[in-house]
């Protein structure tokens, strides 16, 4: 039983790792009251996916996908890297927007602690 689980874990460990990191990110988003920390949580969440993509591109014993003429080498799959590059750009833009929003929130509310924001919001209502 235990061995089966271990085998199962080892063959798919990149999936589990991705999920674990995602959960860490989600935890930060849920439990941290500071908006900046929430954004960091979001980044961790995204990073999990980047890592997942990179891990699926891996070919055992493969080298970086740069053409080496005349030799018989195994390359790792380059496409996920390209995709993830795009995803990173998207992620960076989202982070930038999130921080900009956090700054604006700070400017208009004077705080970025969510419990205080919540109180301010309910007062206004």
């Amino acid at each position: 039983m235990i061995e089966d689980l271990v085998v199962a874990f080892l063959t798919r460990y990149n999936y589990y790792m991705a999920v674990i990191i995602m959960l860490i990110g989600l935890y930060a988003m849920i439990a941290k009251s500071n908006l900046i920390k929430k954004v960091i949580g979001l980044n961790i969440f995204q990073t999990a996916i980047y890592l997942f993509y990179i891990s699926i591109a891996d070919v055992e014993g493969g080298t970086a996908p740069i053409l080496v003429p005349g030799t018989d080498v195994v390359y790792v799959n380059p496409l996920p890297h390209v995709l993830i590059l795009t995803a990173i750009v998207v992620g960076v833009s989202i982070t930038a927007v999130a921080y900009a929003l956090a700054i604006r929130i700070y400017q208009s509310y004077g705080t970025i602690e969510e419990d205080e924001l919540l109180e301010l919001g309910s007062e206004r209502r």
Partner: protein
Amino acid sequence: MISEHLPILAVILPLVGALTVLLAGWAERRYCYPVAVAVLTIQFGLSLAILREVLRGGTIHYYLGDWAPPWGIELVVDHLSAYVLVILVFLSLLSCIYAKRSIGGEIDPQKTVAFYVMFLLLVVGVCGITVTGDIFNLYVFLEISSIAAYTLVASGREKKGLLAGFNYLIMGTISACFILIGIGHLYVVTGTLNMADLARLLPPLYDSTIIHVAFIFFIVGLSIKTALFPLHTWLPDAYSHAPSAISVLISTVISKMGIYATIRILFSVFTVGFIVDHLPILEFFAWVAAIAVIAGSVIAIAQTDLKRMLAYSSVSQMGYIMLGIGIANSVAMTGGVLHILNHALIKGCLFMVAGAIIYRVGLRKIDDFKGLAGRMPYTCAAFFIAAISMIGLPPTVGFMSKWYLTLGAIEAGEWFFVVVILASTLLNAIYFWRVLEYAYFRHADAETPELESRVPVSMLLPMLVLAAGCVVFFFAVSIPLGIIDAAVADLLGGA
């Protein structure tokens, strides 16, 4: 010559437009608006041309850089995409026209340039989603438009808009990540990202756990994007605290974009064979949608703020569309896809009315609307037509989708859904008649100050166009139906 390149132009044009707006705004801030409207008008013409091409010659395939799939990125425009594209561009155009005066009071003047640039970037994303045939491209365009949407929601003077935008950003990004991870899973097992290719390669692998996992990730991610009921939490705040023009834009364009992406993933990537036979997710989907229809309406009844009421009504209407898709026979699908058009017309009109009321008399609460019809007759007439349409009474478009959904549910033998559709009619009636009664049949309090209550033409015109659309498309329903029939046949053809 140009006609071959229409799909890519549909993406490039608003992008160029965004840059032009930026440059124009540099020269003089007030040039932004005419440039943006001009760009969107051309874009609308373009989308009509695409629709014509599709109707004439069937699905258009366009290979970027002449690289044939699966290596290159492929743009595919079929009936459904052309149909959605035309609707979305049209609504963007109208809300852009509408934006001119409405943002005057809601946005800092120095942000006007950024506002229109973001507006056009959102259109880039939306158009990209509709024309792309590549699943990763879909993700990228989804994110482009979403990022633009986050900033636009938060662009107003209203402080709560910032929080709403932040929440929206968090939820939206999580959903995008789920979609991304779904794409990753699919890539692991098939090695391709082209939708048509995926649809071809997936069937032998339908029993693989990874496919199931990927599918569920897609579903959860897309449900957040479309604000399907239990995951709708970001929607009410975002809709009600955004500037009015943006409420119009996201309630029509962004929500439809999510629906479109869902349909694409469900039917063009996974195909009916999977979602019906291997993982009976559609049944589940339909039930969730039915709950959304009822729950959204019930919560909407409790709202006192018009925009918020409309937002919850959107939750319910998204459920309506999803119900049609979930029942998944051709009649119900027709109803669901038709409701994409209908809901865009109706909700666009309603949010425009809400924005005009806020703009002119500064009222948000339904209780304050006493005697409004006398002061804003055209606005209230537009609201009346749209409300009737939302309830689903003839002669308005809302009736047509209700009709097809009912027929579809009956055909599928799903009695419960028939009841849900009829019940939602009743619930819609409750909250819309309340507004109508206040606006038309109560006399204004004596102490209400006589405000200037003429709505500017740039706001009134789009509103009336949409209201007229609600009636016109009832009589001319065969025009969209002609396209939808072909689209639905495409989607269900894989079965």
